[in-house]
């Protein structure tokens, strides 16, 4: 059987078609074929959250989904969210609160934070911690990240 697949999807609003090996993970497709390297590859088995990508409006592990499975989907990466200005306030708060150190976890952390704030506009610190528990950060100790997300939640409520 053919070990390649033809796929068509939207990546950050742009329609793309490619022929790729069926075994290609979505995050590798985004990084190597689309040359969008903001989504990071850490553990490669679903533990660290660095590869978080949005598919049809919901965050997924980019390493636990095949690119072939995103056929016909809307895929959004940190580059798309960033360019659209959708998370400008989160990025600013992360910067100001020093919630970014080495930056490896940051794209995944931002996408996860954005999904939380879309579901819950006034999360408690405990709820923030629980929601980002699937995203490892080895630098900050999380305190500053929770601070930043909490502040953006407050700002968005106005």
């Amino acid at each position, binding site marked *: 059987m*053919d070990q390649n697949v033809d796929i068509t999807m939207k990546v950050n609003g742009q329609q793309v078609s490619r022929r790729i090996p*069926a075994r290609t993970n979505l995050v590798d497709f985004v990084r190597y074929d689309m040359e969008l390297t903001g989504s990071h590859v850490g553990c490669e088995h*679903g533990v660290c959250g660095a590869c978080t990508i949005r598919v049809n409006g919901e*965050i997924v*592990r980019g390493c636990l989904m*095949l690119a*072939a499975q995103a056929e016909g989907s809307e895929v959004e990466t940190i580059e798309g969210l960033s360019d659209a200005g959708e998370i400008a306030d989160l990025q600013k708060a992360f910067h100001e609160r020093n919630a970014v150190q080495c930056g490896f976890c940051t794209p995944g952390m931002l996408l996860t934070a954005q999904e939380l704030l879309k579901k819950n506009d006034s999360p408690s610190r405990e709820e923030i911690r629980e929601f980002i528990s699937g995203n490892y950060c080895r630098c900050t100790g999380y305190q500053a990240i929770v601070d930043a997300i909490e502040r953006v939640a407050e700002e968005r409520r106005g």
Partner: protein
Amino acid sequence: MVLREIRVKPAPFAYVRTETLDQVFDLLDEHGDDARILAGGQSLMATLNMRLSAPEVLVDINHLDGLSDISCDGETLKIGALARHSQVLESADVQTYAPLIAKTMPHVAHQAIRNRGTFGGSVAFADPAAELPAVTRTLGARFVLQGRNGQRTVAADDFFQGLFETDLKENELLVGAEIPVIKDGERTAFMELARRHGDYAMVGIAVQGRLEGDSFADMRVGFFGAGDQPILAKSASAALNGQPNNEDTIKKAQESLNADLDPMPDLNGPAEMKMHLARVLTKRALAELAS
């Protein structure tokens, strides 16, 4: 492009996005052991990435119609095999008719994984450390297994048979779960001990039952991470039924866990540590159930 050549994780395989059950059974018949069903993929993809598994064909069932519904007729809560964990987590029917599952879902992995992982996938994979196999067994669920020529229904107690082993045949597909609706007066408790919220627990417990006056009744105590399969702790449940809710009864239930559980040592610690944690959880969960 140079970068493109670096991209290698799973061993090569063919991929088929199926649209009908017939297509699934054709592929299963043709490829047998060399085909794997791809549902949410949140366990399978990790094993592929690590090359612990190297199927020749992945049969993607995510686009089969009618397998994602959650519904209730007042007696049985039906959860389609392809219902995503996030869908189960947010379901009002699950909250109302199976509160034990509602209490469980926030502990099943993390949001990005819950958005993909499926109820049926977790059950069919039968990981003894996962929450849903143990919780469905605790609830006395039944699973609907679809073959080319019809369906059969199997009780969770008979479905789970060993380490990642189930009654599911090579040419069958798990299409749904049927969960008895919680009865008046029944109470629930769910707890797990994990180093990080959402990770596999070292040990976890799920309990459903009643208090008649001060005595336990119809108790079902389940465990995960405590043996080679999801466990319904029959001795501990029996030790509680008809007995008053006091220290002596709890102690007897804790002692009877020796007959129910057979935890495996792992990176978290030795088997005796897990037995200790199971006893601690038993006491805490029963206190919560009674509160």
